[in-house]
């Protein structure tokens, strides 16, 4: 594991190593070197299983974070490769030649985040949504409530209660401060 990290750092310029627990490491890598690092891990270091490929929308930093979570079944260790890509020009090299199932992840990311993977099979087809013509729904600047209100005929008269306030009124109607006095005690 340590050798792998050392090689990743020296040969592929990986940085920001975070050890979540023994055998689970996250490491950030440049976009241009990501696929070669994934290939290296798969072919030489024995990280042969792609557990998942997912994305996070860091709208404040104007980037998408792609995470390739790779598993080594012999050592029982996992490495998460984090790749930061530009949010405006969301495009990433495809990895479908390494694992066939990446195709499905990439189609999902294209539909839900609008991240393009040129050359990936069936990337332009509908994945889950049919005929979607709005912003990709998992982007954080997509307002799902507003979309639902504009499209789905909301029934008027819907009320929402804050659960804490509501239970306070319900359980201690005469003296709401009792609620805060009785803190939850797991040992009681």
């Amino acid at each position, binding site marked *: 594991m340590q050798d792998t990290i050392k090689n990743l750092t020296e040969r592929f310029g990986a940085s920001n190593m975070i050890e979540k627990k023994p055998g689970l490491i996250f490491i950030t890598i440049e976009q241009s070197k990501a696929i070669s690092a994934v290939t290296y891990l798969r072919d030489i270091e024995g990280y042969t299983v792609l557990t998942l490929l997912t994305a996070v929308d860091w709208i404040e930093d104007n980037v998408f974070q792609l995470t390739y979570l790779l598993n080594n079944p012999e050592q029982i260790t996992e490495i998460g490769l984090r790749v930061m890509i530009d949010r405006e020009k969301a495009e990433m090299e495809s990895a479908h030649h390494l694992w066939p199932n990446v195709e499905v992840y990439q189609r999902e990311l294209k539909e839900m985040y609008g991240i393009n993977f040129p050359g990936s099979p069936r990337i332009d087809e509908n994945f889950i949504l049919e005929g979607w*013509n*709005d912003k990709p*729904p998992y982007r954080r600047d997509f307002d*799902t409530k507003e979309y*639902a*209100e504009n*499209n*789905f005929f*909301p*029934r008027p008269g819907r009320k929402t209660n804050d659960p804490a306030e509501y239970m306070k009124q319900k359980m201690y109607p005469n003296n709401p401060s009792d609620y805060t006095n009785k803190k939850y005690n797991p040992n009681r």
Partner: protein
Amino acid sequence: MEEERKDKFLAPENEIRQVAAPDGSIIEVDPLEDYFTQERPKPYKVRKGPVENFLNWARAESLWVLGFGTGCGSIEIPPLVTPRYDMFRFGVQMRATPRQSNVFIISGYLSVKTLKRVIRTYEQMPSPKYVMGLGSCTINGGMYFDSYNTINRLDHYLPVDVYIAGCMPRPEALLAGFAKLKELIKEGKGHKANEYVENFDWYKDNQKKVINDWNMPDYNW
């Protein structure tokens, strides 16, 4: 006409194609023209007096439920068929195809993608037919009221006879819903299928507002 067709981006099975006839000649098939009707739906005749009462009694006692689960609520339907709840004793039974059933249970949340299949299935059922909305999702969207992919009010897309509130309603609630539906039918209030036909344009407008890639025929019977 051809240009309109292209805009619709039809499903592959609905595109014009060449087919070999039994005698070996090649013929062109246009599924929208040849396999589906071009006629608008017509309401069925509602009779009066004792005849109608008798028909309503008969309709109420033979409810055939279509086996189509749309959301999480469909898990409440299998127990109904087991000895514990046993809906057969109320004259309610399951059927696998829309052509042989007359009760459609929309069980829980309905995504836009499923709505498309639901509309198609509903239109294939023979009239008189009844729709039961199961769970709060069909009433006002329930816990998915702000989802980008699930509809809020079922009654804007299909005419609903009975709502069963809850999240999820238990099988007993479903049985109560069947009892209520029978009551409504016997009172002569079970003609929502005619309402659908009479307000057909309104329903179609609403359906097409949410289903952006309408790639199926407008009339599915």
